[in-house]
């Protein structure tokens, strides 16, 4: 069993740890709103929807993060148009995801014949995380934190009562658009480390567990942040020990914590 101190001592692990901790900050503050606004499916879909962008980036040599963000923001804009003022976005999320995945599959198999690099982007890696990845994750964490502080009251009012929030004169539509855009950008920022298919592990599972353990928005943010940090660090250590990408251990840990929270908070039937 390797020493947990390797996470701090070995440069590539240290970078991966910093990356996961930055994602955990985003996951804590933004994940709260992902769960409260019922955007779990969207956050998962936003990562997967970048598939055509990642294929094009792989084949053309442009930055996969930039290509992924362009597709993800376009996807968020499309989804936002299918819902208004806090209403559900489920159908639009699914419809546009299927369209983008289909385009991605055609591009990957028939146009660019893409291969291993795309697999890595779908499932993540702890190798090869560079300064650019860390910079993107740090920027996203900072923007998500500032946005959550400034817009938290508006997101709360819209999520609680969309009709009432509009009547309060709040910029409900723009706040919604910003939330979807932020979730999409955050999903792309998580791709290098956990992969497009396991974005949910960082942005949904910690907040979903926290939702069961706390009774206020502030408590939820604090608890989600703590769980995301703990699951990120522990998941990375397990990935290093088991020699697997970090996404799967982080996801399994998150799911286990959710399961425990569900059992602990299940109302007694006696």
């Amino acid at each position, binding site marked *: 069993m390797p020493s947990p101190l390797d996470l701090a001592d070995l440069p590539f692990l240290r970078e991966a740890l910093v990356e996961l901790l930055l994602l955990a900050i985003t996951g804590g503050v933004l994940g709260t709103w992902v769960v409260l606004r019922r955007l779990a499916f969207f956050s998962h879909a936003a990562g997967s929807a970048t598939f055509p962008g990642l294929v094009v980036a792989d084949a053309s040599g442009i930055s996969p993060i930039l290509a992924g963000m362009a597709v993800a923001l376009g996807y968020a804009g499309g989804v936002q148009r299918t819902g208004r003022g806090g209403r559900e976005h489920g159908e639009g999320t699914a419809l546009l995801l299927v369209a983008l995945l289909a385009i991605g599959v055609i591009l990957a198999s028939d146009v660019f014949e893409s291969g291993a690099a795309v697999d890595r982007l779908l499932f993540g890696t702890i190798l090869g995380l560079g300064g650019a990845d860390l910079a993107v994750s740090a920027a996203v964490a900072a923007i998500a934190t500032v946005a959550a502080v400034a817009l938290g*009251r508006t997101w709360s*009012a819209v999520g*609680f009562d969309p*009709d009432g929030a509009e009547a309060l004169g709040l910029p409900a539509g723009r706040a919604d658009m910003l939330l979807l855009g932020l979730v999409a950008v955050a999903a792309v920022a998580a791709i290098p480390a956990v992969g497009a298919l396991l974005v949910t592990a960082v942005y949904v599972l910690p907040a979903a567990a926290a939702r069961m353990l706390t*009774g206020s928005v502030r408590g939820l943010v604090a608890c989600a942040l703590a769980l995301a940090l703990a699951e990120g660090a522990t998941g990375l250590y397990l990935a290093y020990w088991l020699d697997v990408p970090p996404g799967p251990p982080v996801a399994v840990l998150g799911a286990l914590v959710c399961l425990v929270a569900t059992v602990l908070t299940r109302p007694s039937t006696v």
Partner: protein
Amino acid sequence: MSGAAVAVEGAAAAYDGAPVLTDVSFSVAPGQSVCVLGPNGGGKTTLFRLLLGELEPVTGTLELSGRPAYVAQTERTRLDFPVTALDVAVMGTLARGRWWLPPSKSDRGAARRALERVGLGELASVRFGELSGGQRQRALLARALVQDARVLLLDEPLSGVDPASAALITALFRELGAEGRTLLVASHDVESARSFDLVLCLNGRQVAFGPPAATLDRTTLQATYGHELIVLEGGGGAVTIHHHEHGHEH
């Protein structure tokens, strides 16, 4: 607008080009209360959306003294949302602008006073979803009171409310009127409409507007409700049959 709190002249509304409300003209003085009667799809919520500025009138004009406060039906709120009665009341301060700042001490003070006024002072820290139906309605009313608006629009505030809450809300309506605030209350209850200063009957168009005694006759109610109206012989009363159609009432 000649001193009126609400003045509507020849207003009409449409969704996707299809007219849903036409020929609406009425004027309400400060301190007056109006019961807006009509069947589901009759145009009550559409009228409120026009007054709130959420819907542009196809024709006509609407003038109000300031931004109105709105109390939606409690069914539209998320009961699982982690907010307390105080949190809900504090949301009313968002109408003052400065939505990017945390609530100030005075914002919280105003919210607490509004909760006291609706009889929920003791329940300020209780989760909204754990309140009774009547208490939830009063919490939403507190959110509207915090806005300190001159005009309040209330969408069926007494629907499904326990008698104690209904009595408290009705008494509050009188207090608000005495303060010079104007109330427009959408309702299905023809009998309770008689306690308002004015009645506005809608059924895709304005059927009637005036004091209850002069307005609520059998002909007007028949034109307003059609098949949904049952007139109780002998006592002269009338009741309506209404179906709750969540999310798509005009």
